[in-house]
C-alpha cells in the first residue's frame, strides 16, 4: 500500500448523499454546473469533484477503470472498495484525467437493458456557462450554453455517434475542480 494514503470523506454518509444530490441535479439539467461541497483532498491528478463522484457511485459491484496512476488507484481501492480493471470496455465507471478511451469502445448497454452502460467521468481544466457549446434535449427548456476547456480532439464527433445510438450509449460527467456538469446520452451538442 502506498505510504501516502490520503483520507476519504470525513462524514461518508452525509457527504455521499450531498454529492449524489448534485449528480442527480446535474443529470436532470444537462450542462448546468453543480458544485460539490466537500473538503476531500484526493491524491493528484484526481480533482475534488471527480473523486467525490467516484466515492459516491463506485462500490464492490462496479468495476472501475482509471488512467490516474497507482496512487489514485490505491486510494480508490481503499476508500470505495471497487475492483479496478485494465480494459475500458469492462468498466462500469471510467475516470479519465487525460484523453479518454473512445466512447464507442465502452459498454453501451443493450436495447433491452440500456442502463447496463458505462459512465465516463472526464476531468477537464475548466467549465463555464453562458458561452461555447449549444446544448439541447430533455432537461433543457430551449437552449443551454456550456464552455468546456481543453477537451480532447474529436470528442464532438464521438458524442454525435453516441447520441445517435439511443437508447444505448454512454453518459459523461465533466469535472473541473469542485464543479461538475453532466452530459446524458440524450443531449445534443452543437459547436458554437
Amino acid at each position, binding site marked *: 500500500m502506498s505510504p501516502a494514503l490520503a*483520507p476519504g470523506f470525513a462524514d461518508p454518509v452525509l457527504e455521499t448523499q450531498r454529492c449524489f444530490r448534485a449528480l442527480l441535479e446535474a443529470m436532470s439539467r444537462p450542462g448546468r454546473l453543480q458544485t460539490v461541497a466537500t473538503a476531500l483532498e484526493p491524491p493528484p491528478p484526481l480533482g475534488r469533484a471527480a473523486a467525490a463522484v467516484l466515492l459516491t457511485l463506485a462500490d464492490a459491484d462496479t468495476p472501475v477503470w482509471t488512467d490516474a496512476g497507482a496512487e489514485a488507484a490505491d486510494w480508490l481501492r*481503499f476508500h470505495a472498495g471497487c475492483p479496478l480493471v485494465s480494459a475500458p470496455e469492462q468498466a462500469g465507471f471510467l475516470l479519465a484525467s487525460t484523453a479518454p478511451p473512445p466512447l464507442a469502445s465502452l459498454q453501451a448497454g443493450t436495447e433491452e437493458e440500456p442502463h447496463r452502460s458505462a459512465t465516463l467521468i472526464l476531468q477537464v481544466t475548466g467549465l463555464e456557462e453562458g458561452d461555447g457549446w449549444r446544448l439541447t434535449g430533455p432537461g433543457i427548456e430551449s437552449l443551454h450554453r456550456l464552455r468546456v476547456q481543453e477537451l480532447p480532439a474529436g470528442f464532438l464527433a464521438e458524442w454525435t455517434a453516441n447520441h445517435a445510438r439511443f437508447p444505448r450509449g454512454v453518459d459523461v460527467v465533466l469535472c473541473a475542480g469542485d464543479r461538475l456538469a453532466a452530459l446524458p446520452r440524450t443531449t445534443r451538442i452543437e459547436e458554437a
Partner: protein
Amino acid sequence: MRRRWMGILARASAAEIEERLRQAPPLPPHVRLRGPEIGLTMVRGRQGGDGAPFNLGEMTVTRCSVRLPDGLVGHAYVAGRDKRQAEWAAVLDAALQSPALRPTLLEAVIEPLAAAQARRAERDARKAAATRVQFFTMATMR
C-alpha cells in the same frame, strides 16, 4: 509480531488501553483515513474444522484506519461497537510498525495488556476447573 499485538489490542477494552497509554510516551498525532465506523461481518465456520464452509452468522465489528505523520498506516478491526477501542488499536498498530517506537510501546502497553489477559484467562480456567465433575469418580464412589 503484528498479528500478536493486534490480537492483544482486539481483546483489550478502550479503558484498559488508555490506562496503559497514560504511562507510555505520547503517541504521534494521527489522521483518520477511514472510520472509526461500525458494520457487520459474516462469520464463517467449518464443521469439525475440515467440513464444507457455512455461514455461522453475522457479528458487529468496528473498524478504523489511521495514518501517522511519517506515512505509516495502521488498521484495526475489533469486535463490538467501541469506536475508541478501534481508533486506539489502529493508532497503536501504526506506531508499533515504526522501529523507533516499537520497543517502548511493546514494553509499556502491549506486554502489560498481555499479562492482564493471561491472568484473566488463568483465573477463569481455575474457576471452571473448580466446578469440574468427574463422572468416572461418581460411578466408582459407591
